[in-house]
């Protein structure tokens, strides 16, 4: 067989079937539905470096990244953000790059990152946690300049009296995020394996509807005889 005829045969064999009826309409509908669900997250401008996500702000959906790795991290952040906004995820695995942040602000953000999903703390709690009891107001300012909102959950910090305090992205979004976290389960267990996962863990997706059990904390799950998933590693604060 000469190469030419093999080429022709291949071309003929690979000639693909036409798309099934209604293919384009179904695709457009699916795109519209999926886009609307994660719409808020997709309109974020995300800047990433090789180390992680460096900036995240509502905008037009732009990505700023100089390398393949940075672009991949920005994409991962966008995907996880969309899942979070749709109530499909309670944690982020994408790393953050806080190298451009001053040391004090960094310690504030590190403390904030330990607040579990669905819970709230006060500005004073953060100040005490970083050992600067009198710096409550400075904590507020540092959180107001959080470059990676939502991923570092500064929306979970309220005033000591329980009032909302401030939020760089608007109090409406802060309320909306707190409501979302109230409605979304933090941990999901399977009553067959007695393993508990963070909501959004790939292993959680294999739990059948009939066997899903929802927990608000690992302590609660342990008390019910469940152990933590080794993949997503839920922890108590």
């Amino acid at each position, binding site marked *: 067989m000469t190469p030419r005829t093999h080429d022709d045969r291949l071309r003929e064999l690979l000639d*693909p079937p036409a*798309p099934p009826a209604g*293919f384009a309409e179904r*695709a*457009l509908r*699916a*795109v519209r539905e999926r*886009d609307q669900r994660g719409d808020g997250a997709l309109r974020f401008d995300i800047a990433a470096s090789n180390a992680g996500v460096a900036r995240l702000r509502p905008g037009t959906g732009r990505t700023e990244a100089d390398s393949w790795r940075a672009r991949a991290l920005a994409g991962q952040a966008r995907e996880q953000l969309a899942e979070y906004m749709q109530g499909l995820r309670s944690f982020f695995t994408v790393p953050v790059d806080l190298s451009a942040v001053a040391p004090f602000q960094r310690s504030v953000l590190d403390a904030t990152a330990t607040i579990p999903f669905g819970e709230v703390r006060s500005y004073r709690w953060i100040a005490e946690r970083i050992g600067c009891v009198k710096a409550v107001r400075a904590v507020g300012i540092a959180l107001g300049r959080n470059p990676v909102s939502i991923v570092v959950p500064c929306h979970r910090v309220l005033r000591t009296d329980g009032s909302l305090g401030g939020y760089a992205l608007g109090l409406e979004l802060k309320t909306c995020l707190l409501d979302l976290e109230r409605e979304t389960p933090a941990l999901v267990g399977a009553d067959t394996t007695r393993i508990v996962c963070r909501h959004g863990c790939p292993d959680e997706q294999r739990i059948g509807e009939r066997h899903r059990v929802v927990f608000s904390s690992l302590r609660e799950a342990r008390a019910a005889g469940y152990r933590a998933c080794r993949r997503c590693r839920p922890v108590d604060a």
Partner: protein
Amino acid sequence: MIPATAPRDRGEASDAELLAATAAGDHGSFSALVERYQTRFFAVARRMLGDDAEAEDAVQTALLRIYRGASAYRDDWRPSTWLYRVLTNVCIDLWRKRSRRREKAAGPGTQPTVPLADRVDVDRALGRLPPEARAILLLCYVEDLSYGEIARIRGISVNTVKTQLGRAKRAMRHHLNEANP
């Protein structure tokens, strides 16, 4: 309301104009783009994955990425290059995820088989190629793209395209002859 950037006649607008209008939020331009590419996209995805339903899923995911990422498109690439890149990446990802699932289900030590594709010889033969090589073969033989464009789509050199293509063709000939001696 259609934004001012939307081309007047979407049927005649270039791919780049449609992408720009999509980025500006014009859903009609995106529909025109989908209309224009649906057959080609389905062709690649169907041959990549060997199954109609999976191909449809893959195309929907790719279109969603294109719709969301339209503003990231830069005109130093041909629009079709970017579109095919998104699609082939989605298909290769899907294939790999599926193979991992299959390996898990089959347990260690078993040879991964090609499900869904075994109805047709050509799909079975394609399924035995590594996904990268398969994508290159399809871009060349189904989409009739040049080596240069395939290289840009897959982010590899023209020489790598030629080598992979040669290997893929030899493997296809071997698998097809095996099936129909």
